[in-house]
């Protein structure tokens, strides 16, 4: 006797919902609860209930921190996409037997602690580091360039740390792309650009979206890259939250900041979903 369809369905959905309710929803409800309490140095949070923590977030300094974090994460995400898309495309077009190996090789360096690798990058970019030595030897510069502790160094570090989280989902989407579709499009007289825009891009869009999410959202919280390569002269959301929870012991304010961040991002995602539906609808009309 074959099991009823409901059994598989119940297991698949039940397991996921149970897990998310227990380990994501419950802790976040705790956070929400803390966010309307007051700071209490003797016990992290306490009475009275208040909305002041949310009001404080309207201070220009925090808006500035949010804006700076968003731009940094956005630039890093776009760079990851620009570098990662052709790379994943190439991976998906190599001989099938090689693909698992090449794919795994993308991630092997990442099994080494990321802070260790960030420090290695710092060594490369240092005033007396390899990059400067090469440039000097090549005669391109006659004085070491200050590469470290700049916005550029920070972005390079972020791209480095996050690239595989763009490449892997993209690869998943690109690999199933049927080359015959492209041949068909070519036979119908579509040029390379048109083929890409009308065939490849729409079919791999889910991979692009997944990759961008997996890069952009974690990038917002990553602060050690900025601390090590950017010289910690800027404040990102990750720094802010760490400071509030640990240094200032202001858990209510930290909790409020974290929730507002999440709410903002969810709002963006919802907007995106609506826009996507609209676009899909107009495309169908064509």
């Amino acid at each position, binding site marked *: 006797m074959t099991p009823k369809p409901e059994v598989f369905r119940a297991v698949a959905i039940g397991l996921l919902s149970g897990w998310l309710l227990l380990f994501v929803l419950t802790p976040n409800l705790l956070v929400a609860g803390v966010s309307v309490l007051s700071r209490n140095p003797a016990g992290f949070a306490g009475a009275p209930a208040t909305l002041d923590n949310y009001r404080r977030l309207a201070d220009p300094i925090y808006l500035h921190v949010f804006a700076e974090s968003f731009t940094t994460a956005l630039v890093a995400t776009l760079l990851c996409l620009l570098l990662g898309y052709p790379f994943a495309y190439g991976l998906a077009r190599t001989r099938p037997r090689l693909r698992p190996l090449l794919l795994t090789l993308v991630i092997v360096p990442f099994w080494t602690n990321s802070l260790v690798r960030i420090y290695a990058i710092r060594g490369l970019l240092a005033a007396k580091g390899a990059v400067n030595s090469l440039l000097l030897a090549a005669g391109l510069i006659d004085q070491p360039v200050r590469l470290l502790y700049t916005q550029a160094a920070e972005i390079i570090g972020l791209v480095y740390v996050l690239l595989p989280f763009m490449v892997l989902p993209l690869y998943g989407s690109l690999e199933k792309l049927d080359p015959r579709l492209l041949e068909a499009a070519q036979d119908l007289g579509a040029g390379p650009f048109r083929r890409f825009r009308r065939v490849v891009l729409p079919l791999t869009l889910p991979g692009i979206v997944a990759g961008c999410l997996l890069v952009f959202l974690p990038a917002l919280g990553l602060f050690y890259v900025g601390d090590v390569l950017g010289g*910690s002269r800027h404040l990102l959301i990750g720094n802010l939250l760490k400071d509030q929870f640990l240094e200032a*012991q202001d858990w209510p304010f930290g909790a409020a900041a974290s929730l507002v961040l999440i709410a903002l991002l969810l709002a963006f995602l919802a907007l995106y979903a609506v826009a996507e539906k609209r676009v899909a609808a107009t495309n169908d009309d064509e």
Partner: protein
Amino acid sequence: MMRRRLAAFAFAAFLAPLSAGQRELRFFNWSDYLPPAVLENFTRETGIQVHYATYDSNEAMYAKVKLLGGGYDLVVPSTYMIDRMRKQGLLYPLDRSLLPHFGNLDPRHLDRPFDPGNRYSVPYLWGTTGIGVNAERFDPASLQAWADLWQPRFRRALLLPNDMREVFHMAMLVLGLPVNSTDPAHIEAAYRKLRELMPNVRLFSSDAPQILFITGEVDAGMIWNGVAYLAAREAPAIRFVQAAEGPLLWMDNLAILKNAENPNEAHALIDYLLRPEVARLISESVGYATPNAAAVALLPPAVRNDPVIHPPPGIIERGEYQVDLGEAIGLYTEYWERLKAGQ
């Protein structure tokens, strides 16, 4: 031999919990703050099994210990954290009769405001923060005071520690204000003063600052004496200057937690660490000065008389340790964030 030890270790790790009757101790310490041999010898001598776990900031240790309410016996907080934890009743009053080696400690480090009478804490390692300068870039003679760091010639050349308390401590010294002030007017004044320093700051970092000096990324800045000592060994041009306004003092201290399950074993380890030869070994391997006078006497003269590691008389007396700021820590953090966000 190595293989056998490893196998035994793997076996022991999976055998937890330990059999009843075994004396044990849970020690929560800074990472790489104790040579492993010390604990091995202690276990061999006393039969007390030490479970060693590490943390990398006072605040993280405090948050975890406080949330857990138990689980650890012995911790090593810095001065201001000892102050906060003792005021919040998180620490266990020490029993001096169990610490016969307490008398080895240098009285200059005892009975300081963060723990009057040392009822809760035993000094472990200490140091000073002074001015570091690369003599190839700037004449050390021209940089004698914290206030000199504000000179425009240091534009984008300075290193400051990525540590709010240290940076504000320095600014308070420059302004002649109480270094542990909780007065909002003082905190704001320090913030305004520091904002003027920002154009000179190349970076904030507390991670291995000696490397930044050695590689020439920074030419001057705030530096810990132990780090300056290490840097000078690699690059003699790097000098340590005792600032005219006075040094910043820091010290990490052994303390037993209120809810410790093994206070007697914790006392036993503290006393073991107070032995001159043990304290000397720790100081030499970690690279910071020991407050243990009997251990200092055992050091080779070159180290004992090094003015960077063991400052001449009169210096310590002019410095202050940080104490708990209470509610004011929120305001400090806010100004620290403003400073970094450039507002």
